[in-house]
């Protein structure tokens, strides 16, 4: 740190006594660092004591771990047939029973989680990025572009997801890629709309005007000054959107429009279980539980994050 003597204009001021570290005596460097660290610790503590948030986090981690480590966790190959034990109930050999072909349902659920994770991760992140970019362009760009993009978003949102999927499958045939594409296209508008609204309020703030007065370009203003301010709520929205995407995938697979047999997916497990529900109800149960837990986990996590990071909510409660 430069000593005070380097300052040319210091002796003629009526300013606080500045000690050798260049600080007024009531602010010490340690104190500043401490206050920032304290705030961070406080946020983490708030999260740790929030049972919803912690529960959500555990479920989400469980979802990720089970999907990523499925090949090592699964006791059987998801497509291995065990004909003698077909349609068996939960036993020590088959923890969640088997299906009509004698495939181990537990292994299929773990592998089905991989499909769900893949769809959710790719679908939500691509939709988030595209929605963020389009939304910022709409909010920051000229009026006609804003109107055009809004029209586009509203048109896409007007299609019911399932009907859009049915129509497209009729043209191209079912595939995992198609499910992904449908999910991305239909979720872009909601991210874009949220981003656009946030950008519109930001573009008239003093600090954006200050950036313009410094000569900052549009790209710089969007990337450095608008994006960091809109991305927070968007990430929380994305966390809450994951279960929606997972259920859409399961729904499409259930209808036979998603992943193709024999690939395991929670939707196909439910579909196969549904066919034999009178003889082996546990298959539907086993296929439904992971869906419920994932939904709860992501929703709880999203809510808890929003409570902690959005200080405008819940003030004085």
């Amino acid at each position, binding site marked *: *740190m*430069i000593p005070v003597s*380097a*300052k*040319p*204009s*210091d*002796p*003629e*001021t*009526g*300013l*606080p*006594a*500045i000690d050798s*570290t*260049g*600080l*007024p*005596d*009531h*602010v*010490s*460097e340690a104190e*500043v*660092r401490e*206050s*920032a660290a*304290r*705030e961070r610790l*406080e*946020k983490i503590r*708030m999260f740790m004591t929030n049972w919803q948030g912690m529960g959500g986090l555990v479920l989400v981690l469980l979802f990720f771990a089970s999907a990523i480590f499925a090949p090592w966790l699964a006791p059987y190959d998801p497509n291995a047939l065990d004909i003698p034990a077909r349609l068996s109930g939960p036993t020590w050999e088959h923890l969640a029973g088997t299906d009509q072909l004698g495939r181990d349902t537990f292994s299929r659920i773990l592998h089905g989680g991989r499909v769900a994770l893949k769809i959710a991760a790719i679908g939500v992140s691509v939709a988030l990025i595209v929605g963020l970019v389009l939304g910022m362009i709409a909010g920051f760009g000229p009026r006609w572009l804003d109107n055009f993009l809004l029209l586009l978003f509203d048109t896409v949102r007007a299609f019911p997801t399932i009907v859009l999927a049915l129509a497209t499958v009729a043209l191209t045939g079912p595939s995992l890629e198609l499910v992904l594409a449908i999910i991305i296209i239909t979720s872009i508008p909601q991210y874009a709309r949220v981003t656009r609204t946030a950008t519109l309020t930001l573009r008239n*703030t*003093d*600090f954006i*005007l*200050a*950036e*313009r*007065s*410094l*000569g*900052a*370009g549009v790209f*710089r203003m969007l990337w*450095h*000054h608008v994006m*960091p*301010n809109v991305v927070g709520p968007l990430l929380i929205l994305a966390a809450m959107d994951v279960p929606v995407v997972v259920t859409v995938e399961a729904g499409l697979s259930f209808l036979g429009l998603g992943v193709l047999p024999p690939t395991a997916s929670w939707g196909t497990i439910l579909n196969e279980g549904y066919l034999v529900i009178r003889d082996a109800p546990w298959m539907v149960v086993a296929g439904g539980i992971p869906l419920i837990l994932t939904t709860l986990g992501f929703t709880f996590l999203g809510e808890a994050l929003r409570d902690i990071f959005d200080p405008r909510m819940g*003030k*004085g*409660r």
Partner: protein
Amino acid sequence: MAKDMTPPDETLLDIRGLSLEFRTPRGRVKALRDVSFPVRKNRIIGIVGESGSGKSTILWSILGLLSGNAEVTAGEVLFEDRDLLHTSQRDLQAVRGEEISVVFQDPMTSQIPVLTYARQMFDILYRRPELSREEKRRMAVEMLEKVGIPDPAARIDQYPHHFSGGMRQRAGIGMALLTGPKLLLADEPTTALDVTMEAQIIHLLQELQSETGATIVLVSHNLGLIAELCDDVVVMYAGEVVETGDVRSIFHDPQHPYTRALLECDPARIEKQAGKLPVIPGDIPDLVRPQHGCIYAPRCQRVIEGVCVTTPPPNAGTAGGHARCHLLDGPFHDPEWPPPAEVLTVKAGETGRPAGPKKIGEEPLLDVSDLNVRFRTMGALHARLKGVADPFVDGVLDVSLSVRPGETVGLVGESGSGKTTLGRAVLNLLRSHGGAIDFEGEQIRNMPERRFKPLRRDMAMMFQDPVGSLSPRKSVRALVTEPFEIHGISGVDLDAEAERLADLVRLPKPLLGRYPHELSGGQARRVGVARALALNPKLIIADEPTAGLDVSVQGEILNLMADLQAEHGLGYLIITHNLPVVRHIADRLAIMYLGRVVEQGDAEEIFRSPAHPYTRALVEGIPQPDPDRRRTHVSISGEVPSLMNRPVGCDFATRCPCVQPRCREEKPPHFTMNDGRVHACLFPLK
């Protein structure tokens, strides 16, 4: 005066030992500590203090309207023998509005926009079932008439957006007085208003008080307002009452060092143009930490080592009240304190200043001539359909102005006078529609951004809101070095530059790692100055550089700006409505009204003998922080007309006290007087 005859023991409201804490994630903020003062009947008591002193918190605790995380830890608020802190919600609701009512700071947000005034005033009288609708309406109309709303019988059926800011505040006062409350609480009632409106509201409150004998608690940071209006004063600092007393003893013979320093810092009290303003060093203490001793000790010029920091000061009786200071009582009593009024107890920092006149260059840095900025009021097609030939309003009309290197030009006007628009048009942030803007001889008006960008290194702007003009998710370090990145300046060590700039604006270096919301107003303002100075500009346009800053801090910022000007020969264009401040820093002044410059010339000359009646009204409109210099009349009435219906003749003709028939017909051109002053008045005062 009659009200001074009231026996002093007739206390309406008594606050005793009030302590209050806010639970926050950072810890418990001890916002009020052992606050005690009585409010006597038929008097106006003023609570004065800087931001964070807890003055508004007192008001809300009287009414029990504190936010959910507040907790009263001790004390009582006695209102006619009832303790309002321990009254049931039901009883408290009966007191609110009926016996105690409030005038809010911002009439824009404290009135219901979707209901007419008639409806809002009926609602206030809902506890009076014995009154008929007609009677209630009559009462409301009478009240509006009393607060000076013209044609009240018709205007009562209008909505708040039909009223202008000053009228709304008048209506707000009327609504507060409608039930005939025993106690009126006013929270910064003039802060949201312009100088000329402020004078009118002060006058109105004075009249109403002498007429009805109401008891008023007034909260303000504005010493002038307190001196004009109040009978008793309570001075607060960081959640404690440091001094109480009647208004004359507080303003003429302050006992506590803080009161003394606060008065010395007020630019309106400093008569001579000092160039440098006195400041109270340091910041308000962190109220989360436990406090021992005197709360003001860390900033006090007369601190006694080893005593003030550790031992709580005694509550010494003074001529008109109490003051908490070791210098006044107890073993450390100093008979020499307080020194005579001429002696400055706070450092003004005048010593190092070069004695000679300021070095002002000859060639103008910025030269604006006949500039026009127009705003479209309706779309082209819409205008064609409606047959409007000219769907524009003039935000800035024929403004000529120049700034030379090393010179400070003050641009003064009320809100809506187009001063900010002018500043933005100069910086090419707005399109202008006529005239010329030359910067160092180069025509820059409406220059394409690509060609203008290099020039932005030479002209910088400081924005009104110190915190809001900083990008919230960027650290201070990133913010001050951003100009280098924007202009692609390579080969500089950004970390070293950040430290150099922090030194330049005297910003403590550890703050470089902070984010804007973690800074105080004064610190954020320094960051704004550092950003503006990063690339060594020649011209700085400062939009309300002291807005939102406390009296003790604004001096620091202005001194800093003066130092930087002396060092770097900067030209300043300072846009402000704050005349007392601009008086001390500006070399020349330009007074704007409705987008036109009505008077321009040497700052001291303009203050000494204004040529335009509007300038005179502004100069006289400043409330003087001296209870012996209270004004008896208001120099101008009415409000700034809307730009949409600009008067045919002189813009000021509708409000001018010396208006002549010719003024209403003829738009006055700009006249140049012998001393180089320019004014736009057909019948100048000089």
